[in-house]
């Protein structure tokens, strides 16, 4: 077994922990090498107390730059996990040919969009496949009090939400199930407006009254803010056929009558086998219909997001190093201000390494304090940004610190503590007598 195999066999936690230690190791080794054998901490403390405002400014500058990097990584991961979680119930989407991303945004993330419709022939073709367990037409475009009203089937609604948090699934045309974040209680009635947002027409469907009969649990997706109704009802309130043959019993959901199928912007499909999803995608990628896995489209978007994040992370690291270089340049100036005391120490017989340790320890204190504060700043910024994104998109973005951020900080601390050797070394070349007389 070679070392790569051994590494791969380690649990992820061990790999992350060891990577963290490896990144921090240079800092620890330099710290031990510089500080060993002496007790410079009291004098380091004196230097910290000597310039409290300047030191605080340096710490804040470092914290801001570290926080930027930490926040960037944590936010990107939170967004990636949140969007993936929101899409995980959508196995395969069929829609009229066009932009997969537009359709993804419309069908999964409920961002309103004008898209062409699929006819009943396509829907019939899908439902004839023996491996299809759910084939749900959806209908959107209406809203109530800012919440999108989405028409679909009971099967898909049940698949999306799992067991309801309260009440039951809609069973007739005028029943609805509210998302977890919709301010409607079971038994409440509402009339949907035509359209979404400020331009919605509140009176267009004034004859259509729905009653909430169930509430979905929290899914962490934009569907938490949606109101789900039978797709037949959406068709009906828009003056279209209800999708069923004459003499329909009123029981909502499939089977639909193809002759009276008004069309749907997307069919949400779930197959009973994974391979069947791939077969369906191949089968329905043709001139009159497109089929895509939301997860795959999302993965492509995440790759782009990841590339952007990597580029921004590099910029963030460069910013951190530049800020730290600026701080270290500032420390050179501060070290000059304390040069007389350092010269005194050397006149008293302190080894050059001791004076070196005092200056390096001073710089290290600022860097480590800034890095620790930066982790807090980054985490705080991530919490705030996550809340804003969740509020605006209804995609649950969770703020969490993870190993990549700690790796970034460990690498930053090691690199800058090595850089801190420079101002410390600069103090050694100074003329003791000249500094004593300063």
């Amino acid at each position, binding site marked *: 077994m070679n070392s790569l195999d051994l590494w791969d066999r380690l649990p992820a936690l061990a790999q992350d922990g060891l990577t963290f230690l490896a990144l921090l190791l240079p800092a620890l080794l330099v710290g031990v090498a510089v500080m060993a054998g002496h007790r410079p901490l009291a004098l380091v403390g004196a230097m910290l107390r000597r310039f409290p405002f300047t030191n605080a400014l340096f710490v804040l500058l470092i914290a801001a730059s570290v926080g930027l990097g930490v926040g960037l990584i944590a936010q990107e991961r939170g967004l990636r996990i949140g969007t993936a979680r929101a899409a995980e119930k959508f196995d395969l989407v069929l829609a009229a040919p066009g932009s997969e991303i537009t359709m993804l945004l419309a069908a999964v993330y409920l961002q309103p969009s004008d898209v062409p419709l699929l006819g009943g022939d396509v829907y019939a073709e899908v439902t004839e496949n023996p491996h299809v367990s759910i084939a749900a037409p959806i209908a959107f475009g209406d809203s109530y009090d800012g919440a999108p009203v989405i028409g679909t089937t009971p099967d898909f609604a049940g698949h999306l939400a799992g067991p309801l948090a309260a009440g039951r699934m809609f069973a007739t045309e005028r029943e609805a199930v509210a998302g977890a974040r919709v301010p409607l209680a079971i038994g409440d009635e509402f009339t949907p407006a035509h359209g979404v947002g400020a331009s919605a027409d509140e009176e267009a469907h004034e004859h259509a009254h729905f009653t909430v009969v169930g509430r979905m649990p929290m899914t962490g997706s934009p569907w938490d803010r949606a109101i789900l109704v039978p797709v037949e009802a959406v068709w009906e309130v828009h003056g279209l056929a209800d999708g069923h043959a004459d003499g329909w019993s009123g029981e909502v959901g499939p089977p639909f009558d193809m002759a009276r199928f008004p069309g749907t912007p997307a069919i949400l499909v779930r197959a009973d086998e994974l391979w069947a999803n791939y077969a369906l995608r191949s089968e329905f990628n043709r001139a009159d219909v497109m089929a895509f896995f939301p997860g795959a489209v999302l993965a492509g978007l995440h790759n782009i997001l990841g590339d952007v994040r990597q580029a921004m992370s590099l910029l963030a690291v460069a910013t951190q190093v530049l800020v730290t270089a600026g701080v270290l340049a500032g420390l050179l100036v501060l070290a000059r201000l304390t040069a007389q005391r350092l010269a005194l120490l050397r006149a008293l017989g302190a080894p050059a390494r001791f004076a070196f340790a005092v200056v390096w320890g001073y710089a290290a204190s600022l860097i480590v304090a800034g890095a620790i504060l930066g982790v807090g700043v980054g985490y705080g910024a991530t919490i705030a940004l996550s809340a804003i994104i969740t509020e605006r998109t209804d995609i649950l973005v969770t703020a969490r610190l993870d190993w990549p951020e700690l790796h970034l900080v460990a690498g930053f601390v090691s690199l800058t503590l090595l850089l801190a050797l420079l101002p410390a070394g600069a103090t050694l070349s100074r003329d003791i007598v000249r500094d004593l*007389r300063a």
Partner: protein
Amino acid sequence: MGLALTITDLVVEASGGRHLLSVPQLDVPAGCHLGISGPSGAGKSTFLHALAGLARRTSGHVLWDGCDILALRQGARARFRRDHMGFVFQDPLLFEEISALANAGVAAAFAPRRRRAAVTLAAGEALTTLGVPTRPARPAATHSGGERQRIALARALATDPPILLADEPTASLDRATADTLADALLGAARAAGRTLVVVSHDPALIARMDRVLTLRNGEITE
């Protein structure tokens, strides 16, 4: 007991090659209290720095009990100063943010591990002897001028050095305080037989030395 000083052909030059100090021959017995006087710019402080191996561009020999400090490498010179010399300057040069005891015992921070406790203990005793209050502990910046200079003297005594070098130790003090410090400095030197070299403009202090040299233009005119 102090160390004897022997200087031969000592020359200290400025960066341009100009002679700052020239001492062809000087012998000072162990335990002697040597005063150095002279006008400003005569080379008095340079002389003191040369005795401590701090001056740059030096030639000749400065022997303390036979050990030529100018022949030592920088690290060995630092060790010699740490083990054998105590300094008092015109400015106490304290770390203002730490206590009197921490300042007086600052050498413990870089002393060999086995000596640290002794240095700290001696610093406390020196402060007590010199009448500097250490309780409650407070930053050195809050002590009076006279106390600050006595803290500096306690710092010089904390390592129990056989040599005391003082550069204008009373210059920034009023007469009464200067006399008190001079008493303390001479008392500490006399009590342990230390060799004391004092550079000063203060006639009252110089008058109390065993031997006085006068420097003019970098040369001893006696």
